[in-house]
């Protein structure tokens, strides 16, 4: 795909589905929050203020304050780094490991293929969120383990796809040619086969991001991984939930909406990316 046709496809995708443009704008905003968050916000996200507890949204506190008087707007903005960071790391890890395992399985076949396939099957035999809970419970309650758990439950999606795609290309003419040219297996896989299956895998990754965010936030919602007073959307929703019966809605609505926005953005981006890369699969 040349750069010119890519640009054309991009323009077409935006014209066809203007929502993709919206998603790009939200994405830029989220990225800004994640990178510059702490220096953008008006208050220290951890600073408590006993004189300003449970203040409803106002000009001073756009999203109000929580039970310790912390500014919710500042916390929501700063939390972007942790939430997106967890999801990106987890998706990147399962992308790299899953693709490698799947590619090896598809290329080698035989026993290795069966063994790797069994591992993927076993992961898929669990309800995935439940398995993630179990992994965090077993490895210990920390942010790193949330990332590991999210990466493990996503492995099969990349692994199975890579396996199937590599398997059909294993004996393709250009692979035979590369083999005749004296290239080793690793080089053939890395330089000749995997680059061909990358574009659809990247679409999968961007569609996966939203799900990874939901998964990580769900785990911290039930009290796993992220610990207070750390600012993270899932745990903020969970802290705010205690005040629902006294009507302090802002404590959970704003962090919750941040989650919705982020997931919505990645889902749309994934759809848009798919339209760009594979025009045939447009629905």
């Amino acid at each position: 795909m040349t750069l010119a046709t890519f640009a054309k496809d991009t323009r077409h995708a935006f014209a066809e589905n203007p929502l993709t443009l919206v998603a790009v704008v939200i994405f830029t905003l989220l990225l800004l929050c994640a990178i510059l968050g702490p220096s953008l916000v008006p208050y220290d996200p951890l600073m408590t203020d006993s004189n300003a507890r449970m203040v409803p949204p106002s000009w001073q506190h756009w999203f109000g304050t929580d039970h310790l008087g912390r500014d919710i707007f500042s916390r929501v903005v700063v939390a972007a780094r942790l939430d997106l960071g967890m999801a990106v790391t987890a998706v990147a890890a399962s992308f790299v490991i899953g693709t490698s395992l799947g590619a090896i399985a598809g290329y080698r076949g035989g026993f290795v293929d069966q063994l790797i396939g069994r591992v993927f099957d076993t992961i898929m035999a669990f309800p995935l969120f439940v398995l993630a809970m179990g992994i965090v419970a077993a490895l210990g309650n920390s942010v790193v383990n949330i990332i590991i758990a999210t990466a493990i439950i996503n492995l099969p999606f990349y692994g199975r796809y890579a396996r199937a795609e590599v398997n059909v290309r294993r004996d393709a003419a250009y692979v035979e040619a590369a083999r005749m040219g004296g290239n080793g297996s690793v080089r053939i896989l890395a330089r000749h086969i995997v680059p061909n299956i990358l574009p659809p895998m990247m679409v999968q990754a961007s569609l996966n991001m939203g799900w990874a965010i939901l998964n990580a936030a769900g785990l911290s919602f039930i009290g796993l991984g992220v610990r207070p007073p750390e600012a993270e959307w899932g745990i903020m929703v969970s802290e705010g939930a205690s005040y629902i019966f006294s009507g302090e809605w802002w404590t959970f609505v704003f962090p919750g909406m941040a989650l919705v926005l982020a997931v919505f953005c990645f889902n749309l981006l994934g759809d848009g990316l798919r339209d760009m890369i594979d025009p045939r699969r447009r629905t």
Partner: protein
Amino acid sequence: MGSAIPSLIGVIIATFLLSRALPGDPAVYFAGPAANAESVQQVRESLGLDKSVPEQFALYVWDLAHGSLGTSLTTGQPVADDLLQRLPASMELTFAALIVAIVVAVPLGVFAAVRPSSFVDHFCRGTVTVAAAFPTFFVALLLVYVFYYLLGWAPQPLGRIDEIYYVAPDTVTGFYLIDTLLAGDSESFRGALAQLVLPTISLALFALAPIARMTRASMLTALGSDFVRTARANGLSGATVLFTYGFRNALLSITNIMGMIFSFLLGSNVLIEQVFGWPGIGAYAVSAVIASDYAAVQGFILMMAVIYVLLNLVVDLLAGLIDPRVRFEG
């Protein structure tokens, strides 16, 4: 059957590995925070942790075969009893959500496919995209805030039935909706139903998206196929073409995504039970995780996985009933 048994074996090995993956000495974890050296040693022996790994695994399988999942630290009861006692609450919620999701999503998808690019189609796409972005626990909290706190339509989100006003039914099936009907107690039935509405909607909402999307896509494929054109050309009525020729063929792709739907429903159950104080196995597992009650956590994971494998088996059998070709390939 072909896929269920290897899956079960995989699940048992994986849960065994998870329980032995605890950092440090598993016996210390299983004995709990209040244990002393003596009770840790006792736990080590009772779990067989002083034996070799293959022996430990054999012991683990032996215990499982006898229905033993160990003893919970927090309740002091056998984990298997705890889980079985709470299982109906979770299953009632899961099945209610599944039924609601299917009853709403399938007609939505069919309508959208019959009239592509119509208002219904755009509405369907829009809601599906938006619904997919809402975390279930957040939807649940929003619903509680609006329908309990602001409007007062829903009862307080504390469990399966308000025991101040209603009597919990005698346990027959463990499903309150069925048990209250069996007891002929329509008051309590209404009470149980009222408690069930919000958690069911929260859980069903996320499952809607994939079902509606898949129904629409597979109906479009079926309706665009040659056999549907032939059926139309032969003058069959619109309804016959739509349901007998279109829908029956589309059903197979819908059953294909049921595995994913169940995976999602069983996982999100944990979050929903947390919000609604639902006394199911998800809430039990969350408190077990928080209290480092490992036997209970392992038991929960194993039970969930077994249920999930069995549900997938049922789906496979249904797929065979819907499409005889699946049976021959199987």
